[in-house]
């Protein structure tokens, strides 16, 4: 696989690359990146060791948007509200409204914040309800990073409960919901279609 061969290569490197092409024996990967005229050839060095399944499972906690890696367990909005009061509200406020600038708002469906007006007004608070494109991100982030002073301390049931509470408080799911892997995977966030891939490419156009 070669990298994006933009007009980046130094003239000198380009000459070397052309020379090598003429010789036509060496396939040089990634000559866009480095001065690879005398780079080491691709080979295996037999360094490192095999990772065991246990070792991988221990660290492989990330949950992507398809929710394929969601663990077993479940939680209700009601239990999430209790846990939020005990473990989160001290920093994020009793209603999740935050204490900016240190502690972000994580709940909020201010009518001003609907319809994605953020490009024009930076003062409108972006929250899970009016901005986040994927519900699985709430689960993943809370499990790995919150509470801020005790990361990694929540059980999977607690994380499901908190995710349910945060999604309900942000008016994404009903207040009587229970979340587990299947139901969390099914949650669609209102503004997911607003996220577009980067179209900046350099060149004359400022985008």
């Amino acid at each position, binding site marked *: *696989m070669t990298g994006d061969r933009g007009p980046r290569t130094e003239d000198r490197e380009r000459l070397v690359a052309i020379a090598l092409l003429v010789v036509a024996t060496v396939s040089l990967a990634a000559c*866009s990146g480095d001065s690879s005229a005398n780079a080491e050839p691709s080979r295996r060095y037999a360094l490192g060791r095999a990772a065991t399944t246990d070792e991988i499972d221990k660290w492989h906690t990330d949950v992507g948007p398809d929710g394929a890696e969601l663990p077993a367990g479940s939680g209700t909005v009601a239990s999430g509200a209790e846990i939020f009061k005990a473990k989160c509200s001290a920093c994020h406020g009793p209603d999740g409204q935050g204490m900016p600038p240190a502690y972000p708002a994580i709940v909020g469906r201010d009518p001003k914040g609907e319809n994605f007006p953020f490009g024009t007004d930076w003062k409108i608070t972006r929250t899970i309800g009016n901005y986040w*494109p994927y519900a699985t991100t709430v689960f993943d982030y809370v499990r790995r990073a919150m509470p801020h002073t005790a990361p990694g301390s929540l059980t999977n049931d607690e994380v499901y409960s908190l995710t349910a509470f945060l999604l309900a408080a942000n008016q994404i799911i009903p207040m009587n919901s229970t979340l587990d892997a299947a139901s969390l995977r099914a949650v669609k966030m209102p503004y997911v279609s607003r996220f577009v891939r980067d179209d900046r490419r350099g060149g004359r156009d400022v985008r």
Partner: protein
Amino acid sequence: MTEISRRDLLAGAVGAVGGAVLAGLPSLAAGQQGAKTAAKAAAKAAAKAAAAPPPLPPIPDDATKLLGTPTTAVGERSRFVNAVRTPIGQVTGVSYTPLQDLTGTITPSDLHFERHHAGVPLLDPARHSLMIHGLVDRPMIFSVDDIKRFPQVTRTHFVECSGNGRGVYRDLKPETTVQIVAGMTSNSEWTGVPLKALFEEAGVKSGAKWFLAEGGDAVLLTRSIPIEKAFDDALVVWGQNGEPMRPEQGYPLRLLLPGFEGNSNVKWLRRLELGAQPWMTRWETSKYTDPLLDGKARIFSFEIDAKSVITSPTYPAQITKGWWPVSGLAWSGRGKITRVEVSTDNGKSWHDAAIDGPALRKAHTRFTHMWEWNGSETTLLSRATDETGYVQPTRADLIRIRGAGTDYHFNPIYGWTVKADGHVFFHGET
């Protein structure tokens, strides 16, 4: 102040601030512990301060008539130099590089800007490792020593936080230093191994289109990166400016993605997972996405557009009539800087500045334009062009194209107004 007492005072101050914030949160045992530790540290610092450090030796009238100081284990800056990062004591914050105090292009490692989301972790290199798994033939674990046995390369690259310049995009206060205007960019000589070599060791499966990089800090920060970057110029680095990388920059291992926004250069790197889709982590959805005018937001906006800033003369300098070097830094995440223009009349005319040394790709480039100030008020501007032909826009351009609410990738032309009395002020309205 000696090194030790300064450090203790700092720890005391940080602890006291953390303690004060957390003391208001009685439900948090950690908060109470923090307050106790802070009290202890503060008491210790007070005791040290009472024991007053020995006074600095007087400055000799004639240094040629007096023996100098002996050799030392680790050198210090001259006592006449006061280059420091600011602000300090933040756990989910940032400290800015003092661009106004630096020369050339390399940022001294201890002045490299900092940005982290849960403080700087203390990692023992003997216990640290890097796991590579997911869509690979052979899931692997490499120790730090293993990684150092691969063929290594040394490359000079900048790292810029894509939030650099947010403050002055919104608030054009003239009393702003270049450190605050643009100090979330730094440039280092990095030593490491091409990520490609590690991926080849594990064997990349054909379905792998993205990889997830995870840091071993207290938020286990994760970012999804397109696999092409691994086969282009991505590195896993351990060296910075001739020595092991600083803890604030990711000791013992960091992902270095030349030209990509700082946050994606995951520090304290411990895991790389290859997959078919991006993971949509908090740091690539809630944060580090760019709201635009059309009710959309740009996602995975990695590359840093070409940018420049004059670092001297800047606020709060006062200059006198006569010749001055107007000097600064330019950089682009898309390759080399090919041109920097300087205007000394608020954009009426532009002059090509001298580019000092070879302009390296995706690295800070120093420019200088000699200027004779005649004593009347004027504004100095700089404008960079990179090898793709991209020209640094004005702030008005960015507001027109992306909106006043856009939240990352600020690269407007910056100005510095010289008043008739020689005082220099920030000029952000370009």
